[in-house]
């Protein structure tokens, strides 16, 4: 079964410092990977996705993610964190359902990012 794992429940970083939120995946075939962010009492906002091509994917709000096939990882990064980046971050993998070919997303458990002033 396709799955992703987020090994850290929480990541703490000081404003202005680089941040990394970790994600590893377990899939058969080529992975389609996503990062979403969730602010309190809000839905999920799309940050970026990896389908194919360059291993470094650039997304919204200055975030980027590095796809590493040998380490089966898709870590989210930002060169300089902002206090407003504090939120819940989810990694997800696309799966195809049985005979239907319809897509669904399987999410990790989430990582809370706290950026201190």
């Amino acid at each position, binding site marked *: 079964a396709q799955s992703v794992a987020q090994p850290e429940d929480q990541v703490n970083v000081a404003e202005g410092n680089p941040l990394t939120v970790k994600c590893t995946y377990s899939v058969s075939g080529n992975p*389609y990977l*996503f990062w*979403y962010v969730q602010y309190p*009492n*809000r*839905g*999920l*906002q*799309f940050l970026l*996705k990896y*389908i194919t091509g360059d291993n470094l994917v650039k997304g919204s709000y200055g975030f980027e993610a590095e796809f590493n096939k040998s380490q089966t990882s898709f870590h989210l990064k930002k060169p300089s964190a902002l206090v407003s980046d504090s939120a819940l971050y*989810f990694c997800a993998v*696309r799966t195809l*359902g*049985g005979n*239907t070919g*319809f*897509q*669904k*997303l*399987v*999410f*990790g*458990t*989430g990582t809370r990012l706290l950026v201190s002033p």
Partner: protein
Amino acid sequence: DAGVTQSPTHLIKTRGQQVTLRCSPKSGHDTVSWYQQALGQGPQFIFQYYEEEERQRGNFPDRFSGHQFPNYSSELNVNALLLGDSALYLCASRSVGGQVGYTFGSGTRLTVV
């Protein structure tokens, strides 16, 4: 361009009651999926609708049912509510044949007391 809209935003129900949540997909999208996000957890896939039919279903009991209308909007119904059904219910839409990935709504917060 309106995104995915969900209603209501908050809801409080009593155990044993039934609830209906509503979702209007993003303009141009024809596929709707529903997810349940319990407190402190990642979203869990409930089911997906396309062309008014359920196309995939996650590991949820039959108390969870849905519907998709000709205008692509969708409803999620939950019968015989349990305390454990308290969660944020998220609707997501996409276009079959469109880009990979989903657009999510802001969710409906259901509290069962």
